[in-house]
């Protein structure tokens, strides 16, 4: 991003230190990352992101639109991305459910975008104002077919701002939708944040070859090398973008097993080859731990309380927080399970990440589940140790 654009964004945001909630932090992070399009639809507890973006975007020459529903908002975001903008939407569980088909389209068409999901209890309308962590699997398996997701899970307001920037960078780098997971409690909780002076941004790779040599969905060797260059609409590349299975030129190739296999495997591998690089965890007190408390998002703050209380009681506890949920940090879990006797997974659902831990851990795994909109107390996590 150009220096003057960053300065303009900082000017629109205002004071360097602010006492803000998570939803506002998403809007600030987006602006600093260079997001200039927001297509939204009101939903509790994510509406404040749309409200803030509708205020900020026109101030920096960006575009905000409230679409007629969530199907439309994610569609407008994909359209905007192809027209060259860094674009995002924000929603909560019911909206995320509605967006699933077009999220699949974004995977299939390799469209960079950011989706902030401020989770609430479900299924269905559930508890609109109360937090949950029930959408984790939905970001990974929600749309039909095969794809790999990138899903981030911050646990405080500063990290929410920083991770929004990171989400945009990963979306651009991997040409993929990136999910930023909050929950009602994080979205509406206020903390002090510092607006960063410098922001490192990644801009999507654009073709350097003339249009006749451009291969819009070509192959690469490993990881992010498998991400094709992005010919922005209007730049003369005449790209045909379709949700149908397509060949390297983007043309429909729907009858051949090999065409589909080649396309989907490349799209999955561009992310999963880089699993280690994308893995991001926070570890505490694991060196001598017998039991590891594993958590993410808002729940990790209770896990931190449980860690301190447990240690005070003489229990040899450790703490592992997943900051990247997808791709799942398989290696970290394997290694952890070799050094501890037990892993306690705390999450605000009846078991989602728990099942992934069971899949990869060699030790005993217990679940400290909680639903109903209340965050775990430290004792509720300790009870499973």
């Amino acid at each position, binding site marked *: 991003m150009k220096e003057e654009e960053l300065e303009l964004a900082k000017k629109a945001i205002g004071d360097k230190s602010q006492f803000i909630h998570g939803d506002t932090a998403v809007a600030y992070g987006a602006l600093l990352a260079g997001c*200039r399009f927001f297509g939204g639809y009101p939903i509790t507890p994510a509406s404040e992101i749309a409200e803030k973006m509708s205020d900020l975007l026109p101030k920096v*020459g960006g575009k905000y639109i409230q679409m007629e529903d969530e199907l*439309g908002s994610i569609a407008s975001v994909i*359209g905007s991305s192809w*027209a*060259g903008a860094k674009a995002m939407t924000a929603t909560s569980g019911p909206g995320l459910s509605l967006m699933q088909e077009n999220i699949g389209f974004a995977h299939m068409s390799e469209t960079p975008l950011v989706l902030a999901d401020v989770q609430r209890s479900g299924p269905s309308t559930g508890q609109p104002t109360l937090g949950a962590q029930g959408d984790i699997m939905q970001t990974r398996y929600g749309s039909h077919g095969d794809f790999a997701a990138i899903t981030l899970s911050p646990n405080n307001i500063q990290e929410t701002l920083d991770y929004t920037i990171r989400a945009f960078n990963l979306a651009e780098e991997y040409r993929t939708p990136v999910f930023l997971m909050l929950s009602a409690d994080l979205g509406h909780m206020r903390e002090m944040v510092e607006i960063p002076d410098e922001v490192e941004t990644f801009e999507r790779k654009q073709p350097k070859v003339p249009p006749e040599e451009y291969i819009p969905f070509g192959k690469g060797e490993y990881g992010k090398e498998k991400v094709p260059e992005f010919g922005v*609409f*209007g730049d003369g590349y005449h790209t*045909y973008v379709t*949700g149908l299975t397509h060949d390297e030129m983007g043309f429909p190739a729907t009858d051949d097993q090999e065409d589909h296999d080649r396309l989907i495997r490349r799209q999955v591998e561009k992310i999963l080859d880089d699993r280690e690089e994308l893995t991001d965890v926070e570890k505490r007190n694991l060196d001598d731990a017998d039991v590891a408390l594993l958590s993410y998002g808002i729940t990790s703050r209770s896990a931190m309380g449980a860690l301190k209380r447990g240690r005070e009681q003489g229990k040899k506890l450790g703490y592992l927080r997943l900051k990247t949920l997808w791709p799942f940090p398989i290696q970290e879990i394997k290694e952890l399970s070799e050094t501890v006797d037990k892993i306690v997974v705390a999450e605000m659902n009846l078991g989602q990440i728990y099942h992934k831990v069971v899949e990869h851990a060699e030790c005993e795994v217990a679940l400290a589940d909680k639903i109903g909109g209340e965050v775990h107390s430290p004792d509720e996590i300790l009870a499973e140790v």
Partner: protein
Amino acid sequence: MSEKQKERKVEMISAAEIRDKYLRHDMMPHIFCTGCGIGNVLDYTLWAMEKEGLDMDNTVFLSGIGCSSRLPGYIDVDSLHTTHGRALAFATGVKITNPDLNVVVFTGDGDCMGIGGNHFIHACRRNIDMTVIAVNNYIYGMTGGQVAPTTPEGDYATTAPYGNIEPSFDMSDMAISAGATYVARWGVKRPNQPINSIQQALQNKGMSFVEMMSPCTTAYSRQNRMGAIEEFWDWYEEKTMLAEEYERIEQYGTEEEKEELKEKIKVGVLHQEEKKSLNERLQDLIEEVHI
């Protein structure tokens, strides 16, 4: 209009040259059935583009799902073949982000008025600057002939084996009511009126909706015993009446003429008005609050 378009001189061009200039030859053969009208709609659109001198580097075609939604694939421009019913929402994102792009959407009656109805009325309401060409064949063709929201009452479909018991939508009426600023409807048989109309639609700085009544000779014709292809095309022609004549009869016609009107479909430019587009409104807002 870009500089390139302004400088362009209008020259005589042949149909073969039109094909060479605009079509993606790698995509041929096309998927359309014998006797289908969609190819004609493509042809008329290309002629309108040529007459208007649209810059192909600066034009985006979008579509949803259905027979007509395969059209953007055959045109050598940037194109987004999206999900069922959602093309107008995708197009909204494209046009808002880069207002300099010419945005054209191909859609069908099921895509636009069925699954995409909500996006359709809101795109019209916003008067966003784009051209929507809706191929209305009164049936779900690609999936094999199921009943559509546009299927006339009493007509047969694979999911209306006893005849359609529901009333049907008039897409052009809907576009007018919802706020589109250029609305026209034509049959596919005669080229000149649709070509000129699509050109007018491209020129309109707002939401333009052109409904093209197009025979589905496979899914609709067979179930409703419309006869051979030529007969079916003639029936479409006989069924339509130009708006001027239609409105004359409405006002001054005899009782007998008015009775006959009930069986007719009004074609022509049905609505035209000047109204600020969403792009202009957004630009005004940015000029007002930009820091």
